[in-house]
């Protein structure tokens, strides 16, 4: 069973506009949520995170929103740039001693000029 779901496999956005990537989860025990960005032939790189006790975290052009009641989080990128084109993975952590992350299937974002 998929505990972290990214239902949109792809998203296409014009440069300068807002990109919104969505993620849903089923396990209410997750205590941190993270977004990773992956370029082809490279490993994922950490982008931004949010604690389950918060509802918003902002870092430059990137903002993550968490709606615990809906078990939903989203990543907003504004303004979108062509260099943002990549696969974005949502991930969640269970509070145990291994720090393993549960990843979604990813959303491929394409930002066109």
């Amino acid at each position, binding site marked *: 069973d*998929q505990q*972290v779901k*990214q239902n949109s496999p792809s998203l296409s956005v014009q440069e300068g506009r807002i990109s919104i990537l969505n993620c849903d989860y089923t396990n209410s025990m997750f205590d*941190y949520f*993270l977004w990773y960005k992956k370029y082809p*032939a*490279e*490993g*994922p*790189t*950490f982008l931004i*995170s949010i604690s389950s006790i918060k509802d918003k975290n902002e870092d430059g052009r990137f903002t993550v929103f968490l709606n615990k009641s809906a078990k939903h989080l989203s990543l907003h990128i504004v303004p979108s740039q062509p260099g943002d084109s990549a696969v974005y*993975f949502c*991930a969640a*952590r269970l509070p145990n*001693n*291994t*720090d*393993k*992350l*549960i*990843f*979604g*299937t*990813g959303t491929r974002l394409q930002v066109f000029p």
Partner: protein
Amino acid sequence: GAGVSQSPSNKVTEKGKDVELRCDPISGHTALYWYRQSLGQGLEFLIYFQGNSAPDKSGLPSDRFSAERTGGSVSTLTIQRTQQEDSAVYLCASGSIGSFYEQYFGPGTRLTVT
């Protein structure tokens, strides 16, 4: 500084053969993780090392999969008697204990079982 490296970058093997995948973590990182990404799937956790011990092997899909880590550094993931469903990109990540979001990933090994 050097990041996480993995070798080989690509591996094609025949069904039934054994393969070894190598991960060189960032120097000083005590935590090491193996994940895999099959086609159309997210990253699937396989195993976690803290130093040389593996307190969490819960993600290994079968007893054909094993991993070891020596000297608190290099790790090897071994798949015995490979099957076609083992075809995936195998990713290694390293980090510091307690800094779970700072998992630095390697570029992965693409394994194709024919």
